């Protein structure tokens, strides 16, 4: 089992003096290590509009590499504007995962549109940065990983990784929409795709992680790290209905693999649960695990799926 020391909340947009587009939420943290800092990309929102509808932007906060609880910088503008009229990403760019490609940076992001019968649809877009990862420009107006017969909608939560000279994209795909007291809620599962260049992707078309709480379990944030020759995936999962409270809300799960294809789920290994009290006492979700100077850290969201920011934990033993 992984044993973690919780370091508390690291970044909360609601208590800092942040711009209007970063009023609430710091969701789905994902890091990139720089010489003196750890850049954490995350997704945030301005206040909801008069219809209670949100848009979401992605941004970053730079943490001190010697002390990741210390904030050095916060992005002054979104790393990517919203998409064009009618495009897949017109109403949101969330979450985002960034990789280095030579002297450039490439971001994979969930693009959100609004639908009539269900609230939204999501597909995965791609954008590149030539200014050190501060701002990005789309490779095209459409998505880079899109819907297919067995992944019909809600392709989101991309996590970009490179192992063994190949690109791996871990993401989620919607399986079905279910009604919870008349409100459509998406059920999604963890999937993957492989690429030689990061642009042309071949889907594996297979669920990576079996369900542990029934067919309507929703799985998200498939975050993969290679440690000591073995691949570890931390992810989060929730019930299909009534998941906005503590009982059926997000928890952090775990799976391991030797080949990135076949995964063995064992949530008892994850080692990061809700706290007795405080900012992560109802749910924990959207884990991201990274190595830094001999330590292993996890960034994750607490209650209300990151409305009040993200926190960190340090690995003590495993």
């Amino acid at each position, binding site marked *: 089992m992984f044993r973690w020391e919780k370091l508390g909340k690291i970044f909360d947009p609601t208590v800092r003096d942040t711009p209007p587009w970063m009023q609430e939420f710091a969701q789905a943290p994902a890091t990139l290590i720089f010489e003196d800092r750890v850049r954490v990309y995350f997704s945030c929102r301005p206040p909801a509009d008069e219809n209670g509808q949100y848009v979401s932007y992605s941004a970053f906060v730079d943490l001190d590499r010697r002390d990741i609880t210390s904030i050095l910088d916060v992005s002054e503008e979104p790393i990517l504007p919203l998409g*064009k*009229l*009618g*495009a*897949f990403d*017109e*109403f949101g760019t969330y979450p985002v995962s960034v990789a280095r490609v030579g002297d450039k940076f490439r971001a994979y992001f969930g693009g959100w*549109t*609004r*639908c*009539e*019968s*269900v609230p939204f*649809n999501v*597909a995965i877009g*791609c954008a590149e940065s030539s200014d050190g990862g501060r701002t990005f420009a789309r*490779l*095209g*107006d*459409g*998505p*880079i990983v*899109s*819907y*297919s*017969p*067995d*992944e*019909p*909608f*809600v392709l989101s939560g991309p996590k970009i990784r490179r192992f063994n000279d190949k690109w791996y994209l871990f993401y989620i795909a*919607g399986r*079905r*929409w279910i*009604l919870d007291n008349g409100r*459509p809620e*998406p059920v999604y599962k963890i999937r993957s795709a492989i690429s030689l260049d990061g*642009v042309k992707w071949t889907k594996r078309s297979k669920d990576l992680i079996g369900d542990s709480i029934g067919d309507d379990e929703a799985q998200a944030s498939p975050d993969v790290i290679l440690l000591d020759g073995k691949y570890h995936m931390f992810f989060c999962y929730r019930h299909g209905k009534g998941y906005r409270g503590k009982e059926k809300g997000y928890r952090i799960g775990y799976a391991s693999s030797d080949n990135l294809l076949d995964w063995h789920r064992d949530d008892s290994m994850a080692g990061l649960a809700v706290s007795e009290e405080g900012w992560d006492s109802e749910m924990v979700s959207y884990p991201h695990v990274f190595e830094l100077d001999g330590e292993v850290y996890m960034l994750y969201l607490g209650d209300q799926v990151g409305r009040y920011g993200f926190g960190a934990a340090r690995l003590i033993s495993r």
Partner: protein
Amino acid sequence: MNWIKRGKIFDPTQHALSNGCIDFAQSPQALICDSFVRVYFSTRARDPRNGKFLSHISYVDYSNSMDEIIDVSRQTVIPLGGLGAFDEHGIFPISPLRVGEQVYAYTTGWSRRVSVSVETGIGLAISDDTGKTFVRHGSGPVMGPILNEPVLVGDAFVIQRNGRFDMWYIFGTKWIEPSGNEPSARVYKIAYASSVDGIEWVRNGDAIITDVLDKDECQALPTVLKIGERWHMYFCYREATDFRSNAARGYRLGYAFSEDGRTWTRDDDNSGIDISIGGFDSTMMCYPHIFENAGRVFLLYNGNDFGRYGFGLAELEQD
């Protein structure tokens, strides 16, 4: 090309259609059967929840000469997609294709959006009962948006040759912002894709038919037939805005030819067909479908009002 018009041959208001459909018989497309020709079309019901249209597939069977109606479908040919699916709010049109003992239907599925009216994708449904009913291959599309085909992929026309599948289809390049009384308007172009299995498609985002109006010309529903050594493509095209009631800006049939099936020369002047002085196709012509049966070449198409009151037929005059 010289076409002899035979007038309107199907009026949906004169038949009892399934799914409560009353008006529209759009985008007729033929499947040649043993002793008859099955013509699929899209017809419409009202969504009881909000009064908006839902497009459903039906068919009418004709004698080989196309002179006589033999039967009209009474059953649901393809049910609409489930909650949140790409084809939840309509299927319009389908391209039927015999593949072994089965019939494939390449569907264009419609789902409603909030900031614009709709998004579409190309699905595949397969029939094991000679095309009477179809079952989806998965609940998602076989072709949706990609990097450089960002929206509104649809209008597949598929053939098989030399062990491969060829598809001509359209993709949207953009939506134009609304202005005045004009709602947001889409722009789409004709493209080509190929496939080994009919499911995984290779495409590149190139528009293959040059514009004759301007860069916002909308091109729809390509249909392709090889006659002798030459490939012929019909399609319809219109201005991007003010096309619904302004006849001068509405759909007309366009034409292109090719020697290899890949590189096309647009040549509308030699399409051999245009709107009539009066009658069902006097202000608009759209959604063409050309097919060959027993040595005769036919053109099915819609006329005024996007086919609200049915479709017509023309036959190619051959030497």
